Every structure is written in structure tokens, then in C-alpha cells.
């Protein structure tokens, strides 16, 4: 009871603080402080309600228990991170996105390929992952290669469609200007089409960061060596170690956000000229 009371008071107090901060002058500090207080309040609410209603840790462990498990299992979490994120997701992301990029350039060059390849890309994207994953495990074995293959299938289509759209993003006058310069195909591609396509390409790259992580984790449910984030999550649920499951979820969330953030930073540097990036 005391926990619930404390939580309610804490919630009200933090709410009041945030309202006052938001009403006051906007500085760099308040910009960071408001969301931080909000996040802390959520965690305190979670902790207090779980304790206050004495909810079994099998159903929902409190954040303190998850943090403790996180801190004591760092070697395992790191091993799983390397297996799933670095080996499975990143390599699949790299292969899938580069393949889609090259395909998009080919598609843009040839109308024949556009009419032939785009429907196939569409078809592959519509394949359900839980149908493909067991088959790819059969083909590529139990280790990370099959997970990378799942990721390739998942990221290929969004990347392809975005890049193809990007390559058409230049406007007519720019095209005419390049013609008056007598630009060759390659000059046209490198100096006009690709730069104009960059906002679209980065859109695709950003969407694919989260798809890659999801694909790599889910693919491990269908057979894996005894390490990896997906393996750990499915196994520890069966063992009722929900604190470990949440620790893995934390790792996945952190890795996913960092991956997305990195892409956003690169985008900022590459497409500094675009109206959406100007301040």
C-alpha cells in the first residue's frame, strides 16, 4: 500500500515539475530534462506498482530486478549481441541494402528490368518471415548465416522501392540542364540522380535498421546455436527467467536505437543541402 501511495505522489510531483518546466523558458537544459524526468517517472511507476500489487516476477519483473540481471549477465549479453546483431543483423543489412541499391540502379537504367524485377521484389517482400525462416535455416545451417539470409529478404524490398523512387526524384529542369552539358549516363547518375536520391535512400536505410534487428531475432526462434538474443529470449521464457528476457529486450532496444541514430547522423552529414536538414 505504501508503495502505491508513494508512486502516486511521485507521479503527481514529477508531472507538476514537468508542467512548470514546459511553461518556463526553453533552454538546452529543459529540452533534456523534460523527457528524462518522464522516463524516470515511468520506471518508478513500474517498479512501485509491481511491488505495491506484489505481482509475480514471472509475469512482470520490476526494473530494479532487470537492471540487476543486466549487470550480472554482461558476458552472456555481449555474446548474444555479437551473435545476433553484429553477425546476423549487420551482415544481412549490409548485403541486403547493397544488393537492393545495385538492383535499383539497374532497374532505373532498364525498363525491361523495371517491369521484371520490381514485381519479384514485391513478391519476395510478401513472403511471411515465419514461413521463410525455417526453410532458410534448412538451407544455410543453424549459425548466423541463415539469420543474415532472413535479414536480407526482409530489408531488400523497402530499400529497393525507396532507391528506385529516389532515382526519379530529380526534376525536369535539372535533367534538361545535364542534357545541355552533354553529360554521359554515368555523369548524370553520379552528379544528379544519386545526390537527388539521397533523402530517399536514407529513408530506406533507416527503415531497414529496425527490420534487420527484428528479422535476426525472430529467425533464431526456428533453430540456432545456443547463443543469440532470439535464442536467449525464447529459452528464458520457457525457464520463467523473465528478468533475463527483459535484459535482452533492453539490449535490443539500445542496439536498435543506436543503429537508427547512427544512420540518422550519417544522413545529416550527407544530405546537409536538403531543406529538411537545414536549421
Amino acid at each position, binding site marked *: 500500500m505504501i508503495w502505491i501511495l508513494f508512486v502516486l505522489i511521485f507521479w503527481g510531483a514529477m508531472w507538476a515539475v514537468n508542467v512548470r518546466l514546459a511553461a518556463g523558458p526553453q533552454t538546452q537544459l529543459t529540452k533534456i530534462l523534460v523527457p528524462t524526468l518522464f522516463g524516470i517517472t515511468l520506471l518508478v511507476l513500474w517498479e512501485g506498482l509491481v511491488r505495491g500489487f506484489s505481482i509475480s516476477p514471472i509475469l512482470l519483473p520490476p526494473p530494479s530486478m532487470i537492471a540487476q540481471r543486466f549487470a550480472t549477465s554482461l558476458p552472456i549479453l555481449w555474446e548474444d549481441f555479437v551473435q545476433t546483431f553484429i553477425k546476423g543483423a549487420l551482415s544481412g543489412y549490409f548485403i541486403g541494402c547493397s544488393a537492393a541499391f545495385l538492383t535499383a540502379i539497374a532497374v532505373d537504367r532498364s525498363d525491361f528490368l523495371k517491369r521484371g524485377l520490381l514485381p519479384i521484389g514485391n513478391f519476395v517482400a510478401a513472403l511471411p518471415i515465419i514461413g521463410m525462416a*525455417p526453410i532458410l535455416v534448412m538451407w544455410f545451417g543453424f549459425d548466423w548465416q541463415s539469420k543474415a539470409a532472413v535479414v536480407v529478404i526482409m530489408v531488400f524490398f523497402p530499400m529497393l522501392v525507396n532507391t528506385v523512387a529516389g532515382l526519379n526524384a530529380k526534376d525536369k529542369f535539372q535533367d534538361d540542364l545535364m542534357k545541355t552539358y552533354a553529360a554521359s549516363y554515368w555523369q548524370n547518375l553520379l552528379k544528379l540522380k544519386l545526390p537527388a536520391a539521397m533523402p530517399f535512400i536514407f529513408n530506406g536505410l533507416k527503415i531497414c535498421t529496425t527490420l534487420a534487428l527484428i528479422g535476426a531475432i525472430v529467425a533464431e526462434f526456428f533453430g*540456432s*546455436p545456443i547463443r543469440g538474443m532470439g535464442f536467449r529470449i525464447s529459452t528464458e521464457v*520457457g525457464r*520463467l527467467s523473465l528478468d533475463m528476457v527483459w535484459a535482452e529486450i533492453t539490449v535490443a532496444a539500445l542496439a536498435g536505437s543506436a543503429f537508427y541514430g547512427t544512420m540518422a547522423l550519417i544522413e545529416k552529414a550527407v544530405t546537409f543541402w536538403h531543406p529538411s536538414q537545414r536549421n
Partner: protein
Amino acid sequence: MKNLIKGAIASAFLFGASAAQAADDVTLQLKWVTQAQFAGYYVALDKGFYEEEGLNVTIKPGGPDIAPAQVIAGGGADVVLDWMPSALASREKGLDLVNIAQPFKSSGMMLTCRKDAGVETPADFADKTLGVWFFGNEYPFLSWMNKLGLKTDGSDGGVTVLKQGFNVDPILQGQAACVSTMTYNEYWQIIDAGLTPEELVVFKYEDEGVSTLEDGMYVLGENLKDEAFKDKMVRFVRASMKGWKYAEENPDEAADIVLDNDASGAQTEKHQRRMMSEVAKLTAGSNGALDVADYERTVQSLLEGGSDPVITKAPEGAWTHEITDAALN
């Protein structure tokens, strides 16, 4: 139209009549999908054994993503079927699971190996790849490997462990030398896929002296303090065991009842009849009451885990004869 209305009125009366008897609701969570492994319960339902005891039983099928212990913790079932290693491990995690009946006397778990992968005896496991189920089903395997002194972390001289999906592909593809199988299910999938019994070596956990108790009925300890719940369970266990004994004597009929209840339509008659005859061998030695010697053996094998035992101390109050004593008199 008239008949329809008559029928509706009649069924309304019937429904009223059965409601008047106030049948007690019991929800049973299976450990796996509807198949002859659970024939006893489906027979008891279909033959009206539960109804005779004044019970209204709902059977929930399980699956690869359903942990019975978690279902009962969340209040989704009154009774769950689970393997004892997993139940005792959950117990140590703070979930008060109590075994009230043990219809499976023997273990049906095996490791099935290809002869051409060079496995003849357990001594040949070293440096081989073995397929294992996880999700709470890995404990018997881990304690066996501990007993053999083989490390499972992939280091030299130990074994490489694969998390196998719930099929037998790894052995068919040659990705693993051995895979986990049940006498009544996956073993026959390998045979159906074209490998002959002569090409295979099987190691039954039962024969290797490392068997642990499988499908048992578990309830929450706190519920057992309630007399009404206890009475319900006594009737449930009595009717279920009647179902099991009926299934043992009439395996083909039992298999057909299971097929009728398989909402997924995924099971075949041939496979279910074969499964029922194999399952009957495992339930044959049990009248429903837990054999304390079997329990002690299971606990002992789980405790002997070397550096990483499945449970760290002998559980207390993990089983009771109270229900079966009252049910089977």
C-alpha cells in the same frame, strides 16, 4: 422453422438443466498441441467421464510458444501438464507448482543418432553436434551430459548443442549427429522421412538411467488450501485416469477421439494410432499416483548438475498424494 424453434427451446432447457447441476469449471492447459500424448483427457471428455463427475472441462492445446507454468501463473488454467524438471525449475523461480498426479510412469525421451555419423555409444558423443529442444525441455539433456562429464558450451572435448526446431530436419540434413526425439512422435517422423531403424541408434533416457518424470498434473499450491478446489481436483484426477485406462485398452478408438478434437486438422490417423500405442506403454505402469521413488530419482538427477545444476536444492512440498489418495480409493 418450427423444428428449429423446438430444438432451440429443448436445448435451452437442456442447458438450463445442466447449469442447474452446477457443473464445476476446470481448465486444463496441455504441454503441446492436440495429439495422442494427451489421449486420456480427450477420452474422458468425449466419453463423458468428466460430466459424470460433475465437471465442465475445457482443454487448451499448447504449442511451441506456450509455457504451461506461465499460463497457470497468469490464471489461464486450473491444472497444467508439465514435465517435472521444468516444473521444479519453475518452483525454484518462485512459482508454487504442486504435482497432484502422475499418469506417465516412464519417460519417452530419446536421443536418436545416425550410425553413419559415427555414434555407437554415449562415449562417442564428444565433439559431435547434438540437437536439443529448449523452452524448458532441455533440463533432462543437460543433466545427462553432466553425468557423462561432457561440457555443453562448445569447448573442446564437449558436445556442440543445437537448438533444434520442433522437427527432425537436422538429422535428415546431417547438420547434427543426433536429435532429441520422443518414442511416440519424432522418432516416427524420422522413419517416415525415409531413414530405416537399422541406420539409427537410439539412446532412451529410461535405459541410460537418466530419465526424469514427464507429463504430470500440476496445480498452484495456494489453490490446494481450498477444500472446494481440492474436491474438484479429486474428481478431475479420477475421471482423467479413467480416461487414460480406457485409452490404453482401446488405443485405436482413443486415437480417433483425439483426431476428432484436433481443431487444427494437422494430425493424421496413422500417426496418431501409432503414437497412442507408444504412449500406452509409458502410462501403463501408473494408476495416477506419483511414485515417490521416481520423484526422488528425478530430483537427484536434477541436483547433480555439476557447475550448473537445474535446481540448487531439494524442493519441499512439490508433490502431494492427497488428491490421488482420495481419487483412487
